[in-house]
């Protein structure tokens, strides 16, 4: 058997280009349906686990999928905006704990999640180091975000502008890292958590600037009346909240109208949840309430349907590939007729020569299966992360 395998191996090595093409084709045919299944199953489990851990989401009327993806996985696309009055309304109903979410800004590729400390309790966060944010301008970073940004306690992270070329847009805000979370193996690991008011400051809805009454700012003042001062753009605005300038930060208008992407509602019990959902049943209402698990199940159903189509296509392509490989093998037998005749003429046994040819096929299949297994293992390890980032991008 060793001799047969040796001869088969020598043939495959000598004809390495042909071998590589065959192995690659068969590997793909084995891997595609299996790998796809692994990815979909694992991603499904991962997505569902997060959705199941989040009872209800309230947001503005619009796409429930965008609302769920943004609130659970901090996806780049943010939903129609609701406002802070929703938090007050849910709290006042005494049916659920309301946790504001404002997931709109980023620091490089890491999402900045404006929320309250209730979110930390709700997700049962543990700190690897430091403490929760205590004042405006402080943040807590998830384990992966800390690693990606290379920051720790006392360092600063800066929000990214929404668009580089819009001078009137969001200005970067430097935020001090107060704590780093322990790994949770969820999308929270990627996030930078700030108080929702800090998120509004990032947007420019709240701001801090030079005291207009000070002599230094006199040159910037355009108009001064009893209850209003108008200044020009030369007035110094702060892009970092420090102990020295914290008092100058303020918000204009009624905070209840300030934007949020969603409100996480954690009902006190099942009955409260049902009542709360009933209150949003009115089709004319401006808000919607969704059960994330339902939304994610629908998404997975869609992915599953697509997967079935892909698997069917792969099976058809696979059959074509196997037929082509068989044809290649039979043609190569014809081309190798003389070589086979030589072996038989000098006394090679028919079973041995046949075994050698079959061993070539077997080696190609075994190599392909091994390669497909390795890629499937890699998919099992890294696939869900890749597909999640693909779905959430």
């Amino acid at each position, binding site marked *: 058997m060793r001799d047969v395998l040796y001869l088969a191996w020598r043939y495959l090595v000598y004809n390495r280009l042909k071998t590589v093409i065959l192995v690659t084709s068969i590997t793909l045919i084995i891997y595609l349906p299996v790998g796809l299944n692994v990815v979909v199953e694992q991603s499904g489990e991962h997505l569902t686990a997060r959705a199941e851990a989040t009872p209800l989401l309230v947001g503005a009327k619009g796409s429930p999928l965008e609302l769920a993806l943004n609130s659970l996985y901090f996806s780049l696309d943010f939903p129609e905006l609701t406002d802070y009055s929703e938090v007050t309304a849910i709290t006042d109903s005494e049916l659920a704990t309301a946790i504001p979410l404002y997931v709109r800004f980023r620091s490089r590729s890491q999402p900045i999640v404006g929320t309250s400390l209730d979110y930390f309790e709700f997700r049962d966060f543990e700190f690897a180091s430091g403490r929760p944010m205590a004042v405006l301008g402080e943040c807590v970073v998830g384990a992966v975000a800390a690693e990606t940004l290379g920051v720790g306690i006392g360092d600063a992270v800066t929000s990214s502008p929404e668009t580089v070329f819009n001078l009137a847009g969001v200005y970067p805000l430097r935020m001090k890292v107060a704590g780093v979370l322990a790994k949770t193996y969820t999308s929270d690991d990627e996030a930078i958590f700030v108080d929702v008011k800090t998120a509004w400051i990032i947007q420019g809805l709240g701001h801090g600037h030079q005291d207009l009454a000070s002599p230094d700012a006199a040159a910037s003042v355009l108009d001064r009346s009893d209850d209003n001062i108008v200044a020009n753009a030369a007035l110094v605005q702060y892009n970092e909240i420090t102990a020295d300038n914290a008092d100058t930060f303020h918000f204009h208008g009624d905070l209840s109208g300030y934007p949020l992407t969603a409100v996480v509602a954690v009902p006190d019990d099942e009955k409260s949840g049902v009542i709360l959902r009933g209150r949003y049943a009115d089709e004319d209402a401006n808000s919607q309430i969704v059960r994330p698990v339902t939304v994610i199940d629908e998404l997975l159903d869609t992915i599953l349907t697509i997967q079935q189509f892909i698997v069917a296509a792969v099976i058809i392509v696979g059959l074509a590939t196997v037929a082509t490989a068989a044809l290649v093998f039979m043609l190569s037998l014809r081309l190798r007729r003389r070589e086979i005749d030589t072996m038989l003429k000098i*006394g090679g046994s028919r079973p041995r020569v046949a075994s050698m040819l079959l061993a070539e096929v077997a080696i190609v299949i075994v190599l392909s299966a091994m390669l497909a297994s390795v890629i499937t293992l890699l998919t099992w390890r890294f696939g869900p992360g890749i597909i999640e980032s693909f779905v959430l991008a």
Partner: protein
Amino acid sequence: MIDIQGLQFSYGESDFSLQVPELAVARGETVAIVGPSGSGKTTLLNLIAGNAIPRSGTVNTNGEEVSGLHDAARRSFRIANIGLVFQEFELLEYLNVLDNILLPYRINRALTLDSDVRGRAAALAEQVGIADKLQRYANHLSQGEKQRVAVVRALVVRPPLLLADEPTGNLDPVNKERVLDILLEYAENNNATLITVTHDHDILHRFQRVIDFKHYYA
């Protein structure tokens, strides 16, 4: 060594017919077979080797009625007792020189590849001047080198009978002499029988017996 009696052979429905009433070749004898193309010289070699089965008559090779053996036994007998050399060398392109020489040991369980065989292969390669080319592939060798590899492949099993089908047909004069020297020297040193089919009348003087085959076909 070889005893042929009443041999008749034909290929299916073709007009070709080979008839050899009687032919005996002694152990250690060197024989050259000449004759026109299509006269059945190569067919005779195939019949002696058991690669073709006669319609009637017997071919006794080294005491064995080869045509009476079943396929597997015939192949085992052939690989252990008969060294075959072809005009076109018939080396496997995906094997290097050493693996080509050792090929008989890998394609039939009747032979066992061990260190003695490897040593013998190396010694034979040294003897015919290809020791430095053992790791090369066949398509990197000259015609003369290829035929020397093919001859060593035939000799490595130490066969008592060598059948060579126009072994010098594709070689230049220098390599022709060299390959003939190797075959004849082996036959002499090992008391082996050598039967060579050839069209080359310049080499006939080197054989003990010459058979003109035009008498044997119809």
